């Protein structure tokens, strides 16, 4: 698998929210996706932690409200 981090984040997000992969773009933000509510946000954090084998700090997990924010956070945590 040679896909970059942003693409994989987009795909994880699409899976969690059950949306077609094309609907999540590199710049997508939580406020523009109706399905991305607080319940799905928790599922998203759990899925990201499991998929990328990282542990996300609670304060930070509340701030992961866009694809770029998630990508940056995962990058800092060493996911590639």
């Amino acid at each position: 698998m040679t896909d970059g981090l942003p693409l994989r984040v987009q795909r994880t997000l699409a899976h969690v929210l059950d949306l077609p992969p094309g609907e999540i773009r590199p710049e997508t933000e939580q406020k523009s996706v109706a399905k991305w509510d607080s319940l799905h946000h928790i599922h998203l954090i759990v899925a990201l932690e499991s998929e990328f084998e990282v542990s996300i700090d609670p304060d930070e997990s509340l701030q992961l409200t866009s694809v770029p924010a998630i990508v940056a956070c995962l990058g800092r945590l060493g996911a590639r």
Partner: protein
Amino acid sequence: MELRGGMTALDSIAPRPLAQLLAELDGAPASYLRLARAVEERAHELGPARRVAWLASFTTELFSPYLAVEAARRGLLLEPYFAPFGQVEQVILDDASGLYAARPELAILAIRIEDTTPALADGFLGLPAAEVRRLVEDHVARIDGAVRALRQRSAARILVWNQPPLRRLAAGLADPGLELAQSEMVAMCNQALARRIAATSDAYVLDAHRVATELGTATFYDQKLAHLARMPFGARAQAALAGAIARSAAAMWRAPCKCLVLDLDNTLWGGVLGEDGISGIALGQDYPGSAFTAFQRVVLGYRDRGVVLALASKNNEADVVEVFAQHAGLLLRLDDFVARQIHWADKAGSLRAIAAELNLGLDALAFFDDSPVERAWVRQQLPEVTVIEVPASPLGYGDALDASGAFDLLAITREDRERTQLYHNDRARQRLADAAGSVDDFLRALGMRISIGAVAADTLPRVVQLLAKTNQFNTTTRRHGQAELEQLIAGGALALWMRVEDRFGDNGLVGVAIAVPEPAPAALAFRIDSFLMSCRVLGRRAEHALLGSIARRARAAGATALVGEFVPSKKNAPAAGLYRDAGFAAIPGEPGRWRLALGDADPRPSDLFSVLEVS
């Protein structure tokens, strides 16, 4: 970094059946989320949805994907309703609440000590022992009250979580030395809860304590989810709890297997008897023999809880008999197997022969064999048989058998525990039948003593179990639960049990009949809603004793007619002729319905057995 497991799998999900997709579950939360979508898309492969209500002292919505996937792995499709968290009593006591609008078939009740009585958690050391006992009693009484209130308003099966071990102990290292240890308080709570719940029909404990123990509290609890989402449990714990719920649900709605068919070579002992000889097979105290001995202990445990054992082995029968007679390392005895197919012919044939000999359907058999080739063959030839996936190492055999859930029962009755003896008695009867000149001679020689009585609290669990699992001699296959049956009885139904004893022993409670008074215009008739007998007593005409008793009781209640129904299923052909043989007339224009006018005389008395009406 390589992607783990399933992400690429999703892209190829479309054309494959759900069962295949579920086999890819790797236990990671992301894998559950992905497969939950697949379950949603393939819901039609699982049959009708069962409605499940969650009532809890914490949020439960996050369980959705885990429960959907775990239920699908047990062949069930669930449709959840979530009551607002922390409002269990309010929702149950309000007849107009969303709970009852959701018409649940299963209610999951999860109330934690940490939520109801925080003093018993972190505040434990501030409480004298007497106060601890009082608070535990209050907590248990509160749950029991919710269960009873729910039962008054709904016939749903109820699954009540017990208390998992606490995340932290207030006294830390010193807990075991306390006058009343905090861990002991939890055990006390769970014991009291189990006893209280047992008084309510169709209410069972979900052993959340055991789930947490298997996982370890460090994995079970998740502080981040607790604080961000009011979900006390980590993702893996949610998956494990969902797995336990799905397993209980499957045990409620599925007939369990009855017979475990075992291979011998490399299954019950190491090595191949035909090649290694009696002294060469591995069994005993040292590895690898110890692994097989350990598995035999597990199998004996299954025998003790009512699973009938059988052998299907490719071997020379004389060699096998010799091993069982002479090898000191064998814990199982040849007598523990009520049916034995030991020869070189095909195993699908052996399984068919075992089912026929024991008078069981093929779907009552679970097959355990170390050979992947034999398993694949049986799977392909006999799809009804439950084929247990066996790991390569014998160290995993017992766990594989446990995890299959093939023999899961929510409650074990006296009949379950005595079953092996019952089947041995059957074999003795068979020998008598072989010697008798005619069927009537044989039945007379059996000296049957039949007792019949009204279903009451002591017989209810076994009656409900028979309703749940009898497939062959069952006129309508209506799977009434305990609560539904109690409602029928309260509404005036005659509910009867039948026991059959003979010179070879007691067959136990083996027959059930439920007759319901017809609504007003036909008030003088009773409709036989359910009539069933265990396959153990088929072909003994005992059904006529039970029908005779219904007729007498219906007449005593003022009825002038009985109406019998037959609803064909895949398996109930043995009961198709019941009403015709008993002298009922087919009702014109109503297929499957039969009628018998109740005159003064009893329906056909018989000299083949004696009948005692107990209650």
